[in-house]
């Protein structure tokens, strides 16, 4: 899969990342990189530190040790907002949609950074602000079409079934037109059909928009199918890194997964 796309340079480089919460060492000296246009999977048993890794990339957590380089430049501790400004978008393991808002409004918030009109222009509904709103509405409609959620535009997201909420979560992230997309278990809790749809969407995003994707997933079949390279974490340590085929044959990985049911 992944067709004729060309994997590019390293866009994200993490060196010797260590992160602990009190006594809990969530990440220990983890080093890996992500290349442009690739689908990079992070796998590992529960509590291995996968989400923590995404949270470091996304500026939610700041590692005690290690360096993060993004787009060729060393990055100092950024906060989540700055990470978003730099083109990093994400979805959440526990869906974090804006429950009171419609699907459309949720996705529109993804355009927030790209909308420039000032507070007063919006308040007084100046033509410039109205025009901008329409333009971005257009972009959002494209995302909605892309993810095939046209029928649910006006529905408050809290009323949607779980699988669709996950899709809206992805839609909101896509609306940001990110360079780097972080997906935390986008298929968790889905049935086979929903998983297939989600796989297709992720691959399409990767193919059509060239978006670089870092993906956490428990379903091995899915991971091996759609990712270009895989990193394996266990108790906060990296125990494997390579193509799906390499990972399949890696003894440390096989050991880590023995006794862990998936």
């Amino acid at each position, binding site marked *: 899969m992944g067709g004729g796309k060309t994997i590019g340079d390293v866009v994200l480089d993490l060196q010797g990342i260590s992160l602990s919460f009190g006594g809990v060492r969530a990440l220990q000296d983890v080093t890996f990189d992500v290349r442009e246009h690739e689908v990079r999977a992070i796998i590992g048993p529960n509590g291995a530190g996968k989400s923590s890794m995404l949270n470091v990339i996304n500026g939610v957590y700041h590692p005690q040790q290690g360096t993060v380089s993004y787009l060729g430049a060393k990055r100092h501790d950024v906060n989540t907002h700055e990470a978003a400004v730099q083109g990093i978008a994400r979805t959440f393991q526990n869906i974090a949609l*804006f429950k009171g808002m419609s699907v459309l409004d949720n996705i529109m918030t993804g355009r927030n950074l790209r909308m420039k009109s000032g507070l007063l222009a919006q308040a007084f509904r100046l033509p410039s602000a109205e025009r901008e709103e329409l333009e971005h509405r257009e972009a959002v409609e494209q995302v909605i079409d892309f993810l095939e959620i046209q029928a649910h535009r006006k529905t408050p997201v809290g009323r949607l079934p779980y699988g669709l909420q996950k899709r809206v979560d992805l839609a909101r992230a896509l609306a940001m037109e990110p360079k780097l997309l972080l997906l935390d278990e986008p298929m968790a809790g889905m049935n086979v059909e929903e998983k297939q749809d989600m796989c297709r969407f992720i691959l399409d995003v990767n193919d059509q928009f060239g978006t670089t994707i870092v993906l956490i997933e428990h379903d091995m079949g899915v991971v091996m199918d759609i990712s270009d390279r895989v990193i394996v974490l266990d108790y906060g340590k990296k125990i494997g890194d390579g193509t799906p085929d390499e990972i399949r044959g890696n003894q440390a990985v096989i050991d880590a997964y023995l006794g862990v049911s998936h």
Partner: protein
Amino acid sequence: MKKNRNLMILFAVLLAGLIAPLVTGASGAGFWVEVLLGGLMAGVLYSLVALGFVLIFKASGVFNFAQGAMVLFAALSVARMAEKMPLWAAMLMAVAIMVVLAFVIERLVLRPLVNQDPVVLLMATLGVTYFIDGFGQTVWGSDIYEIDLGIAREPVMILQSVFDGGILINKDDVAATAAAALLVILLALFFQKTKTGRALRAVADDHLAAQSIGIPLNRIWVIVWSLAGVVALVAGVVWGAKLGVQFSISQVALKALPVVILGGFTSIPGAIIGGLIIGVGEKMAEVFLAPIAVKAFDLAGGGIENWFAYVLALLFLLVLPEGLFGEKHIDRV
């Protein structure tokens, strides 16, 4: 289900209280409508202040005890500056002052205390309350000041053809109510229809998710506190014009508290409807209930308006803890 039943019972009680004076013949229809209108007009202002409260609570999780102090401070600013310039200019200047205040509070109080316990933040807003109260007096003085809106305070008779004796209302009350209602509607539209409105709602729903799509929390806080400041300003000017600008209007403004308990801390429609219920409820109680209490128990009978709202709120707390429109929190397990 239980919530719905309780809600029905509450409404039945409120409704019964509302129409009792009519049914029992304690009041003529004209007078009753007059009291009702008076209550609604007072209620719109409560709604307005409660809205400021809800905005801040939703966006920053802060229970803003300083809302009443902000009302007084804004009214003082307008009253004193209007001595030296036209009223509209004084109001514009006061808006600017409230925005600056929002910046200062965000910078010096909210930002350093982010992620602290709600209790810490509550204490902080208590501090802010006393600061604003004192600072207002230091800068503007502590006498009673007047605000002249330039609207004649004459009562007018309306609907003489419908009701016997017509209905007496004050022109300035009507104007103030219209202004307050307009502001409420504009705010609601702003929330629904603009990018910043969406961002505000997003922050209210989920801080982390909002930040991760690039909504700047700090800016949202400034905007929310500024809006609360403007809301306080309008309420302060209206009350100030009516009662004189003095310390007691910060007490009146604290009626927003029972209003938000009634409407739910996170609900904008709740703030609006809660304000109206409290406004009408206390007027009705004052006019119709007080005389009964006086007769039956030989009481002095005054001051019902001062405590009725709180008792009503308490009743709601007992029966509907999350308020009329509050969200039930179902935690993910």
